[in-house]
């Protein structure tokens, strides 16, 4: 029996998503990820605790937040604590606020300039949102757990997937697969489709780009592909992993384990503004989104190897 009271840290639920997985889907974003990809478009998913997002444009500098902060983490802005390019009105000491549970500042802000990202939800609460979308799945659609990385909150994720299965909902997870084999094995019975990334075939290079080596990831993909459909997605990061050799190696790896479909996703900058809001630094160097010609070229390399390659 599923434990509906089990809680997890969720930072977004997107209804009517048409991109991640087949059909109309509900996306559940779980917080926490072991990787630190330089280009990460969901930086609010990285840490396994609630964070405050600061929207400079909405802030009038009233300091209502500073007045209520029990940790003294918020001060009037000074050049010394500049976080990004925009001119903020307040300065948040992220070290001090990392362990805060009260989040009084968010409640105090009258203008919605401080917003919470990540809240504890029970399996039951998430399932309620899923049930709302249920009639729209029609066999094809379903639930996709994303993040962050759902494997980083395995107990909650598995309970949640289990609860979905009890409602006969198609389930998918989007994971980097950087976890112990035993953990991944637990996901196999409750997950219908695995969406995973191969960011680089060279482990050393992989570590430079993401902070972790790739051996474990590749092993897990190989294991999973034996039992369940796996869709491999390759983010195309110009200058980092888009060389022909790496692309060919990726395709070869997939073919070896019977994975015949690869999606290639062009790098984009849609997440950049979130870094400033979270007081994080965007470490990816300035690069442009790869053009259509480049994407077509990669598609050609992969298709020559014998996989079906889809752009986006």
């Amino acid at each position, binding site marked *: 029996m599923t434990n509906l009271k089990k809680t997890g840290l969720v930072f977004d639920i997107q209804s009517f998503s048409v991109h991640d997985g087949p059909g109309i889907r509900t996306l559940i974003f779980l917080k926490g990820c072991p990787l630190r990809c330089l280009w990460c478009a969901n930086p609010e998913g990285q840490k396994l605790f609630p964070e405050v997002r600061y929207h400079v444009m909405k802030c009038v500098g009233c300091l209502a937040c500073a007045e209520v902060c029990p940790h003294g983490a918020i001060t009037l802005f000074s050049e010394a604590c500049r976080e990004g390019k925009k001119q903020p009105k307040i300065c948040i000491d992220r070290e001090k606020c990392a362990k805060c549970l009260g989040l009084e500042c968010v409640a105090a802000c009258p203008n919605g300039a401080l917003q919470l990202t990540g809240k504890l939800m029970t399996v039951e609460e998430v399932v309620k949102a899923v049930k*709302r979308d249920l009639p729209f799945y029609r066999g094809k659609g379903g639930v996709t757990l994303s993040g962050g990385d759902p494997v980083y909150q395995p107990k909650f994720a598995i309970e949640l997937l289990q609860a979905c299965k009890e409602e006969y909902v198609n389930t998918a997870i989007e994971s980097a697969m950087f976890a112990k084999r035993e953990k991944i094995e637990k996901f196999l019975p409750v997950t219908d489709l695995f969406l995973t990334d191969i960011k680089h075939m060279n482990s050393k290079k992989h570590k430079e780009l993401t902070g972790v080596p790739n051996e474990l990831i590749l092993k897990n993909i190989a294991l999973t592909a034996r039992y369940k459909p796996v869709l491999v997605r390759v983010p195309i990061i110009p200058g980092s992993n888009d060389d022909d050799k790496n692309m060919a190696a990726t395709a070869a790896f997939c073919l070896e384990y019977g994975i015949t479909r690869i999606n290639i996703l062009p790098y984009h900058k849609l997440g950049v503004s979130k870094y400033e809001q979270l007081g994080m630094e965007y470490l990816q160097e300035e690069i442009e989104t790869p053009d259509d010609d480049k994407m077509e070229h990669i598609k050609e390399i992969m298709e020559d190897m014998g996989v079906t390659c889809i752009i986006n």
Partner: protein
Amino acid sequence: MATQLIDFEKGKTVKWPPTLEESAKEGYIPREVVKEPSTERGRRIKQRLLSARCMLDPEFTMLYTEEWKKAEGEPLLIRRARAYKYAIENITPVIHPDELIAMQKSRYIRGAVVYAQYSQRYYPGMISKAEHADDEVYDVGMGGGRTHKETKGMIQMGIFGMKEEEAEPLIETCNYWDGKCIEDEAEKFLRESMPEFDDLENAFKTVLYPPSVVAIMEGRWIPAYDMVVNQGLEAIIADCKEKIKNTIPTTREVAEKVIFWRATILVCEGVINWAGNYAKKAREMAAAEKDGKRKAELIKIAENLEWVPAKPARTFYEGLQAAWAAHTAVSLDGPIPGLSPGRWGQLLYPLFTKDIEEGRLTKEQALELMELLRVKFSSEEYVSSRSWESLASGNLFQHMIVGGVDKNGRCSDNQLEEIILEAGIRMQTIQPTLGVEVNTKTSDRLLMKAAECTKTGAGYPAWYNNNMSIEHCLQNHMEEGVTLEDARDIAMGGCVEIQMQGTCHGICHPAFFNEVKCFEIVLNDGVDPRTGLRVFEPLGEFKTFDDLWQAWCKVESKFMKVYMRYWNYVLAVHREINPLVIGSVLVKDCVAKGKPLDSNGARYNKTVTLLNSGMVNVANSMAALKRLVFEEKKYTLEEIKEGMSANFGFERADKVGNFSMLEQKRIDRKYENLHKDLMEAPKFGNDDDYVDQIFVDLWHQYNDTCFSETTYLGYPWVPAALSISAHGPFGRVCGATPDGRVAGVSLTDGILSATPGTDVNGPIALMKSGTKLDPTKMRSVQLNMKMHPNAVKGVEGSRKLVDLVKLISSKAGIMYSLILWILIC
């Protein structure tokens, strides 16, 4: 009455169209589906329409009035028929270059005709304010875009131009109707007979009701085009002659039938002669035409019009011409914003297939004709007061429908309907607007085509739940003995109101009830805060939420009743001095019964509706008060009212020059926290029962009040839920509200739409909220949804859009039952 209080001038007009760079900067991306008219001719005609000037054409009303005077002393229906016949027979036939389908109301490419017998008031005003411009170049104001090189002898009145020499005769015509037209006569009647006349005046002054719509008062319906296309007007004349021969006028009622049939003969003859004038004109033009191809086309036009609309159409081309003639003839009977073609794809399909099979017609030709027809519909403009223009965005609501089922309940969509959608994709004109009736049986093929059409960004088609519409008609017309076959023949009368084709009285309504204004009056103890007028006796202190609720019910039902009764007085006058004649002839069973529409001649007469705007604002406001004042007791009602009168510390919207909540500026921080708490109170559109239940209760209250009143046709009023663009002007006259909306900001659009920015759980939660309201008894329930093009990109995206719509319409899971107006932007 209240027009001058609504400040439209300050609303900035956006520059249109934006350049590519401007679009990109605003985050717009190009439409996925972009197509051109299929022929060079179509491209030329479209360009001509877009660059044409709007013209006011008083020819019809002047001729009408001339004969009306001469026919004094005749029985009313005969007098009406004679005036109509004389006018239509004598208006100037104009065939524009390149046209294949001829005839229109006015002499112009974009023209509006005048109906002075309804309201004579504003034409003299328009003319006296007109600018006389000789050989000057200037931008025609309001909306901008078109620049016209003025020619001598033209005057400009707002967006309409008119021949200078017609100004005086038009004023004379109006002077004749002064004190005699429906509006003037109704005012006398109301003033002398209506017990609640003071309440009525107050309601107009406070803009609980918008200014009078009598000038464009006719209802919205779908004529029985099959009577013209398949039978021909000669058959109707013959039928009436036969009936007259076999009827001895005994009682008054029987004698009146004979008079109606005589009137029918007159108007039908008028329409046939009018078509004859066009045929003659086409022959003359053909004789003078040097280009052989055009000459042949003109001869074909003449041949068509020498046959239809008198006789049954033999080809698709004739059928289309006949249907168009019928549409135009009816629209000359009175100002009918919402005269809808309905299911022409069904009407003309037998002729279409016959022509295709026998090799007379190609699909390409059919497509070109349907494209050209779109331009004909778009050429029809109408004049109305500026207040109505802003309430309804100047739209003529001629609605063409594809999809649905046949009389036996089988899926009936066909190739011609696909062509209609394709024509809508290629010839993007504002009229006719398109709608798709989605039945559980409708083919994916048609729906995918409709999705393609949606993806052009043209703003059509609207998507309707056919199964629920049928259920509504069966329920609504139960007491009139509705048949299942009739209920299945559904289209839209006007914008989004369900109507059976060719068998119903027009959906006639006084206009919109301003719900937010009503709520302001409740909160201010019966006084309108803007004008200071006391319009209701003091309501006492609200100690509980129930006190507030009871006060609301009292005030809302009183003013709704006054509004409905007012309309009965107006329509009683309409029936006595201006019953519809040709409009009646082409609705079943007026001829069979020998009665015009005004005397319950139609087969179904429970069609009069009341509309409103702003219910979501009231629901959100009530939820905020319920939680913060009556449950949590965080604020007193007085504290919240103080915040409201201080506009929550915001600048006035008209000073900001923008009426969207997003653009409002806070100038005083005193009410910051109060405003935040109000904004964070439960909002409709998030599947939150707390507020959704209030929303549902509000509608039940509204519906019950509607049902409690009787229309001038003797049936209960029907609640309709649509607001067109009333939310804009209504918002201007309403102060800050407890849902966090500040003064002057537009009310919430649509009916099931959430207040912009407050639905944060996605489209499915929004629909879940909306569908808590059972709409079976309501004439229409509408939801506007806007999607980013990327969400429905490619064939896969179209599939997902179709899936979404089908699921909304299907019985599976939750019972969805609404009209979905999906815009791609």
